[in-house]
């Protein structure tokens, strides 16, 4: 049987493309690592995250420590949070050149798969103790800052440079990534003046990163991936702890409140092993956050809150992104934009007979695109460079800004116990949260 010429040429070119050199490093970049910094607690979630200017429960120990001075009794707070996050990755298809319509090369254009991570766990726990003088408050907390589980498998896309006679195929690849960052912190707040409180905290963040990226052989140039024949692999692993401070201020005029919080991101070392290259250490830098929020109690039953949150996601580029792109020599082409989130929300206290009112909450917030982007920093010269640029530009083109819609409800179960529930929905993220607040002791309250 005579093999078509195009097939033969494709196989020759494909053999070059499947060479494992530098491919492992690129793989990890093809699934954007994207996470949000949501304030803890179901109340905060239901308010669309607009909490820096509210900060009136135990979750303030993380969200805005200065707000702790508002508390009248010792409080215990715990939150169970469940999240579902979807990431898109370049799964198959042909990015350039004509489809051969044989084997796996049957689709013109890129096909993106979805990597969905689901996680449920204790999102937050805190204990707040206001001093009898009401001037200072201390708190301890545990907060899960980020938890990401991703897994994907790509068949390898087909490409063809106009200057070449044959197509190329990216090697099939698999990625499994788990990232967890949790903070164990102590916060304190001091009432400087009647309307001014300052707060601060120091948290020890634990960092756990486990990533495995593998490339596989194929059954013929156009055939299915052979997952039993590994081409190459790279790993990223880190188990570290890092310190990071938070400072906040709250100006409280009774009906109106303004809160400002600055939270530094911790940094953690991790180790990358790429094929047979020597292991190297890089740094994962959690973005810094600045939030400015305000709330106004328009009526005793109606609270309006807003917040602007600036997050310098670009801190992720240095090392974490550039290290993965190191083998390509194209580090300058990768970027992550800093982002500004906008949060708006309202809470209405619905009176119900003689009981404490039920709190109905709703919020929306704008979540800017903070995925990794690729834009060629230099003009590609070789066909390999051109196809690399094409592939990465496509793979990292799915980042989008999102609008989140949130809502929730809060109940007073007893004088000591409050329950809150909330949901936050966006095209690629769903978060559900329930939290309870326990008022410990009377603390003088009737």
């Amino acid at each position, binding site marked *: 049987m005579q093999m078509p010429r195009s097939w033969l040429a494709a196989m020759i070119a494909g053999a070059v493309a499947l060479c494992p050199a530098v491919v492992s490093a690129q793989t990890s970049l093809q699934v954007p690592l994207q996470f949000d910094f949501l304030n803890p607690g179901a*109340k905060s979630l239901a308010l669309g995250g607009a909490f820096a200017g509210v900060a*009136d*429960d135990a979750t303030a120990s993380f969200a805005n420590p200065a707000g702790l001075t*508002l*508390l*009248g*009794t010792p409080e215990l707070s715990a939150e169970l949070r469940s999240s579902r996050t979807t990431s898109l990755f370049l799964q198959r298809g042909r990015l350039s050149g004509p489809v051969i319509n044989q084997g796996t090369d049957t689709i013109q254009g890129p096909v993106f798969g979805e990597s969905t991570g689901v996680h449920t766990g204790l999102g937050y726990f805190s204990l707040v103790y206001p001093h*009898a003088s*009401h*001037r200072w408050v201390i708190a301890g907390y545990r907060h899960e800052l980020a938890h990401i589980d991703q897994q994907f498998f790509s068949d390898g896309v087909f490409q063809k440079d106009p200057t070449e006679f044959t197509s190329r195929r990216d090697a099939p690849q698999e990625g499994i990534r788990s990232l967890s960052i949790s903070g164990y912190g102590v916060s304190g707040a001091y*009432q*400087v*003046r*009647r309307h*001014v409180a*300052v707060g601060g905290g120091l948290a020890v963040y634990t960092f756990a990163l486990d990533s495995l990226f593998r490339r596989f052989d194929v059954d013929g140039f156009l055939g299915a991936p052979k997952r039993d024949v590994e081409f190459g692999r790279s790993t990223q692993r880190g188990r570290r702890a890092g310190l990071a401070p938070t*400072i906040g*201020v709250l*100006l409280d005029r*009774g009906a109106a409140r303004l809160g*400002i*919080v*600055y939270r530094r991101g911790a940094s953690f070392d991790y180790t990358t092993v790429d094929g047979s290259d020597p292991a190297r250490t890089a740094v994962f830098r959690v973005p*810094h956050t*600045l939030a400015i929020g305000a709330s106004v109690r328009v009526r*005793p039953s109606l609270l309006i809150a807003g917040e602007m949150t*600036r997050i*310098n996601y670009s801190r992720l580029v240095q090392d974490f992104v550039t290290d993965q792109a190191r083998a390509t020599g194209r580090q300058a082409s990768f970027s992550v934009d800093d982002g500004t989130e906008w949060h708006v929300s309202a809470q209405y*206290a619905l*009176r119900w007979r*003689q*009981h*404490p*009112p039920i*709190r109905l909450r709703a919020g929306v917030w704008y979540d800017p695109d903070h995925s990794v982007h690729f834009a060629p920093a230099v003009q590609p010269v070789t066909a390999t460079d051109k196809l690399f640029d094409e592939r990465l530009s496509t793979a990292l083109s799915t980042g989008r800004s999102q609008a989140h819609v949130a809502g929730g409800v*809060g109940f*007073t179960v007893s*004088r000591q116990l*409050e329950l*809150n529930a909330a949901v936050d929905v966006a095209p690629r993220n769903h978060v559900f949260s329930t939290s309870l*607040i326990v*008022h410990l002791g009377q*603390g*003088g*309250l*009737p």
Partner: protein
Amino acid sequence: MLNLVLGVLLLAQSAPAAPRTDTRTWYQAYADAQRAVEQRNWAAAVANIEAASRAGAPKPGRNVLFYGDVYRDFNPDYYLGVAYLNLGRYDDADRAFERVKQAQLVAPKDSQYAELTRLATQAKGMVSKEAAALAAAAPGAKLPDPVVPAPSITASAPMAVPNASQAAPMGLPPASAAQYSSPQAGGSSSMQSKLAQAANPKLPNRSGSNSAVAQSLGARPPDMGQPAAGEERAALIDFFSGRYVEARNRLTKLTLTGRGSQRALFYLACSRAALALTGQPDADNAIAEARVQLRQAGDLAQFAQDRPLISPRVRQALEMQP
């Protein structure tokens, strides 16, 4: 980013200092008031309720928003009433309890209701006694016999009140009438209101019946000279007006000069105990000294008509048997 936050912090620090150093919110001051009541620190309770009011406390009510999502019944008048009652400010206590009742903040099904009823009744009774005492103490009024109980004056019966010129010798400034409207003007508004009435019969009479206090104020030892008797009566008025310092000073002077009666010693002991209990300055061992003075006053049976008028707290501090 950091610079912006630091700038705001510096701005907050550089703002002109407020004249008050009390940084508490209204609900924190209210919580302190309740704690003070639990600790039986009545003067502090009143001060904290007043601080809560200054800090912008809302109207009393059920399920009032304290902070965050904490809703509680806000009933400052109840605690005010309790504190006033124990401070001997019976008229203020009576009015505070009346406000609680009118606002229906304590319903019959509430656990506080029985206690409120008991305290309100107690306050009203003491107000009646005070009123009767004032009527009897006013110059020109017929003083009851120190031994024979005075006839009771019913609420419907008008009090015999002197005119303004007769009120003047009692030592209170005419301005005291203006203080009537403010239950928080000081420790003597209850008595001041009665004296204001004495000075101006057109003022509404808020008092009821009974004349036990009147008997106390009017009962003079037969062996006392007229000037000493007047001084002692003035001291007793001070005492029942909550002006314990003045009462103590007058009675100390009387006893040191040998002009004081046994009752002067009795009320001196009570004044000093009241001072100690209300946190006002006196000797460190005021209670102990007051007990000695009480023993010097002799058999307590001779003060049978006075003892019911003394605050249970004072009686307890002085270890008087009921």
